[in-house]
């Protein structure tokens, strides 16, 4: 299975699908806490990204990032 590159567009597409939010609202500066989701949705989002982009993010790392741009950098940096 080929692993896609974790561009911001690719990440945002996944988040939009998992969290059911309009793709156009997802920009690098958007705070994860602004996505208006409950904690289980965030678990689903985090694991979906790791499964898709074949990376590992720990609970501690996930808790330390604030924006979608930071999330994308973390995922890309792990590839």
């Amino acid at each position, binding site marked *: 299975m080929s692993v896609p590159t974790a561009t911001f567009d690719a990440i945002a597409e996944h988040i939009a699908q998992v969290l059911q939010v309009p793709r156009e609202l997802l920009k690098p500066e958007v705070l994860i806490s602004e996505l208006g989701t409950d904690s289980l949705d965030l*678990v*689903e989002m*985090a*694991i979906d990204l790791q499964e898709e982009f074949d990376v590992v*993010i720990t*609970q501690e790392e*996930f808790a330390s990032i604030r924006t979608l741009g930071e999330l994308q950098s973390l995922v890309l940096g792990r590839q």
Partner: protein
Amino acid sequence: MTADDNDRWMLSYYRVSEINGALFFGQMARIMRPGYLQCQVTHHFADEAAHSSYWTSCMEDLGFYPEKQRATYQDRYFTALGVPANLMEVMAITLVFEKRVIGHYRRHLAHPDTHPRIRQTIERIMLDERRHVKYVRQALDEMGVRYGADFVRRTLERYEEADQDAYAKLISEFGERMTFLESAADPAASALTAGSLGS
């Protein structure tokens, strides 16, 4: 033998915890890569949903309806441990949780006044819970390759420690509801009271 208010509260708590478990594993099953673990997690999702149905039927047979409850034991876990951020952490929290559930149900079974209909439901559910522990243990062993065996071990230790606190708080908060469990004479229940896991 009749069911009382505590039974109604307790069984309603079991029921809503199983519902939340099903919703959680349903979310996981939806996003996982195809393969053995996806099959197991999907089965787990179906089991939890079935368990909530068993409790609903059990209560109906005992002549009462479930209480509306929202807070569950899983909520306590996420408050105590933080939400898991990767699949290994999900499996680790699941292992600790399943062991706790088995220990708690064993404790309920050990009580001599447990209604036969409740006993029947617990015994049916326990068969699935044991299978869950087995597949999750296997998954965690295999995840050592990707996540590092030491990281898996440390995560389990951290969650087991938090589980002790979460369960102690549950007993403390709902002590009156669970007094009957304190008198359960099962040796495994005594081990639980002392702080070790029951399975």
